[in-house]
């Protein structure tokens, strides 16, 4: 990794600064490398929806949609759009070979019953205890959908998000100030700058994105974490 030392005086994520780290697609691409053959995965909106394009060849992942679809394929082209077959965002979809349809209770039995390997979600904030806030900005219109079930039930909760918000404020924080979706539920965080894992209840920095230094990550993170880069991460 290139050790480009950033000026400590640099303000966090100035809008005009040249982009460092991964693009939104780059975050999705990096996360997709960690999906294993046979995983059953649910995707939230935002960056997570870009993940399927980057799933490595030879890795078969079953995509689950909360409205009762197992084996979701790409969005349907207009000529194949069928209002009886949509994803959780109400967009017309296709099915892959081997797909199955269930009712909403069975769909969430899959989720809460521990049959979903990973849910990939966007986030407003993630705390150093693995708390997630991603469903509601106070003052806006409250709607929750399946987010609370997904984080309560999936075996792994992977967050794909920008490292800081639009105002440059860190989204990895000591304590969430936004309303929680779930407590102690996040297991990994993929951002434009880094990859973090939660292990034994502690947040651990496992990777910096190409061209990103651990110092820059530290500067733009408001959560306490352990640095476990390089060989330590393989332990």
């Amino acid at each position, binding site marked *: 990794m290139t050790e480009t030392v950033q000026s400590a005086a640099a303000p966090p994520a100035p809008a005009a600064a040249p982009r460092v780290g991964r693009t939104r697609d780059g975050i999705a691409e990096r996360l997709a490398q960690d999906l294993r053959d046979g995983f059953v995965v649910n995707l939230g909106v935002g960056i997570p929806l870009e993940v399927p394009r980057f799933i490595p060849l030879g890795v078969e992942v079953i995509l689950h949609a909360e409205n*009762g679809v197992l084996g979701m394929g790409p969005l349907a082209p207009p000529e194949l759009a069928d209002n009886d077959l*949509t994803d959780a965002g109400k*967009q017309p979809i296709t099915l892959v070979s081997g797909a199955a349809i269930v009712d909403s209770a069975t769909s969430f039995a899959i989720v809460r019953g521990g049959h979903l390997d990973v849910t990939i979600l966007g986030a*407003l904030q993630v705390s150093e205890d693995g708390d997630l806030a991603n469903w509601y900005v106070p003052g806006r219109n409250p709607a929750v959908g399946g987010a609370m079930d997904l984080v309560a*039930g999936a075996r792994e909760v992977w967050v794909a998000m920008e490292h800081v918000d639009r105002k440059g404020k860190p989204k990895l924080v000591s304590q969430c100030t936004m309303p929680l979706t779930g407590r102690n539920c996040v297991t990994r965080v993929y951002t434009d700058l880094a990859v973090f894992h939660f292990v034994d209840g502690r947040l651990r920095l496992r990777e910096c994105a190409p061209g990103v230094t651990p110092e820059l990550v530290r500067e733009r993170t408001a959560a306490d974490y352990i640095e476990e880069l390089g060989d330590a991460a393989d332990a």
Partner: protein
Amino acid sequence: MIDKFREDVLAVVDIVPSGACIAIGGFGSSGRPDTLIDALCDLGKRDLHLVVNNVGADFLGVGRMLVEGRLRRVTASFPILQEFYDEYFAGKVELELIPQGTLAERLRAGGAGIPAFFTPSGAGTMLTDGTFVDGYNPDGTPASHLPPRETRVFNGREHVLEYGIVADFALVKAHQGDRKGNLRFRYSARNFNPLAGMAGRHTFAEVEQLVEVDELHPDDIHLPGVFVDDVIVALPTSPKQPVLPTGPVP
């Protein structure tokens, strides 16, 4: 002889009184029983408490009920429609917001004779700790909150007590149905429909195709007629308005 097929939709649903609690199937416009909903609107039913996942992103179905001012309370996970929120914040309609899986399971449980159950969904959040405002005063101040849930720890994790929902009536939409009330759904239009159907004390089903008894193989029936009281034929679906993707996550 059992024959649940009814020709006259308005006569059938007129037994629903204003003020009733009604469970409705559908996920967005997919599998939404618009013919039955329109009949309730045409009959002028008001003051309704709906248990339904979405309040439209269009002005059909539940969205129509909302804009016509027919709703008193909505139990939902993802209301979507801006006009709904305008009414909610103005104190004209209440919102019981619950996680989608909890909504599905509360309907299933209600229909299955399970009065309550513990679930991890929503534990430790404002939807279960008594801080979520479910109704506003006309001046915009909070009038009431969702009650805090009882909690219990299982396997080291906090769970919340949720109650099964038994609705006075249920409206469902199926692809095929027969005169015994047996229903078969199509693709993801199934969603909440079988659960709403189970949860209704009296369940109306609209079907796209009325088929002969025995045309549906017993193995292929998704909701048996034991849960269904009246079957009507759905009016042909008008071309659906495009539904915009929307979500709370950035």
